[in-house]
């Protein structure tokens, strides 16, 4: 009698044995990845939000800033990581710096688009009623721009998750480790485990932000 084929380790030709056998290890790398992405996103937002507001106000600055951010975005991630090493050494720090830099283009652009897309009559009415600039920003403009800003956060998060895998090359840990190790040791099971974990993270993050985006659009009655 032929031995029954085990169900799990070969799902439709994909060998997931490594993933099953090393679940705690993969989970810890997953955690590292989430941390790296989370920290990068938080720092990136803290920079992009004020930068985006300023760019939305000052049209001349807008093209310069978005131009520079566009150039940064085109630098291959591996070379940017390596370029940072002389200044920051290896590890999480250069990884976060690079990821923050990559996220800026999408985040700043969406803040600008969100704010400049608001019906000027709404802002004029707000001014005409005697709201201060800060009140208009906080109570009117940012809430109305929120759905578009969240769409930017979603796209930025996805690219940070993807580029974050490369950061394993400079010792920042995360799920990229599985991919690099797998390639180095010719272990496709490891590569598959890393790929599945990264995909799960990306799909999960996408779903989460998409939900937030939809709720924001409903709350602002713009969607």
């Amino acid at each position: 009698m032929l031995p029954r084929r085990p169900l799990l380790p070969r799902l439709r030709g994909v060998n997931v044995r490594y993933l099953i056998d090393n679940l705690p290890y993969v989970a810890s790398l997953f955690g590292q990845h989430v941390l790296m992405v989370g920290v990068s996103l938080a720092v990136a937002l803290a920079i992009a939000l004020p930068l985006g507001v300023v760019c939305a106000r000052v049209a001349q600055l807008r093209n310069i800033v978005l131009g520079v951010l566009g150039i940064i975005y085109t630098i291959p991630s591996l070379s940017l990581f390596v370029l940072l090493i002389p200044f920051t050494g290896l590890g999480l720090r250069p990884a976060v710096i690079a990821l923050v830099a990559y996220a800026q283009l999408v985040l700043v652009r969406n803040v600008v688009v969100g704010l400049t897309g608001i019906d000027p009559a709404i802002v004029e009415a707000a001014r005409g009623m005697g709201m201060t600039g800060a009140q208009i920003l906080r109570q009117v403009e940012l809430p109305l721009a929120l759905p578009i800003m969240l769409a930017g956060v979603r796209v930025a998060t996805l690219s940070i998750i993807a580029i974050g895998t490369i950061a394993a090359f400079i010792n920042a840990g995360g799920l990229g480790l599985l991919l690099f190790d797998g390639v180095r040791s010719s272990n496709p099971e490891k590569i598959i485990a890393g790929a599945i974990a990264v995909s799960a993270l990306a799909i999960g993050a996408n779903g989460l932000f998409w939900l937030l985006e939809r709720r924001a659009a409903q709350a602002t009655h713009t969607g």
Partner: protein
Amino acid sequence: MSSIVAEQLSKTFPGEARPVVDSVSFRIEPGEFVVLLGPSGCGKTTLLKMINRLYEPTSGRLLIDGADARAVPATELRRRIGYVIQQTGLFPHLRIEQNIAVVPQLLGWERRRIEVRIDELLDLVELPRAYRRRYPRQLSGGEQQRVGLARALAADPGLMLMDEPFGALDAITRARLQDELLRIQQRLHKTILFVTHDVDEALRLADRLLIMRAGRMVQFDTPLAVLSHPADDFVRDLLSADDVLRRLSLLRVADALRPPAVNEGYGNGSSALTPTDDLRIALGRVLEAGGESLPVVADGQNVGRVTPASIAAALARGERALPD
């Protein structure tokens, strides 16, 4: 009620050679309904926006209730001035009640006072109180502009600035809102500055018309005076001042009343006029009824009659009564 005095008010936008508003001076009395009328680009909206300092004048002075408008911060000044614009500018992410509460909240009113005020205002603009919890998108254009009006009136400002508020509405809704505005004005006696390029709307609403052309004020007088004595050909053309019917529409039956004929009854009721009907309607009805005369009835009493001759006399009197 606020008085407004403009002294040589001018506005030139950066990079433009010609001023958009050019040395405009006027005095508006408390409680007056003034309509700024003129073709597009004449500077009427710019002039309006200089009053709540959305634009700062390049030169000249503006006094509101005798005080220089620049004496207080612009935001503080604006909270005392109601502002209604054509596109309503309602905040789409806030409920109707939150939209109405904006200025009272800026002024730091207590929660309960604001709640009471919201209901008062919805009653005033004849919207159901159930609308409080709705969002602007759920209302029709006319209803939205009623909310816009309620929002501008929220903190009971003495002065209202209205920038083509009914311009985007269909003719029926516009006429209804014009009536509402006149009714509200009779109750509240605000000083109102109202921008429009619709001549009929201007004649219907204005105590006085401020007519502008290419940045300059060309005439500032009552509708009847402007129609009877247009300052120049531009004003004459703008208002079709030669149109006798248009002038008649500004006079009331009360202006053309003759004593009742001794042997006259109440007429056939349906064709009887009231003292507040305008003379354009009256003339039409008189002609319809045979061109002789029609009884005028007020509170069930026959108070007099109107004849073609009395209408003609009122027209002539309306013109003669005015200073040159």
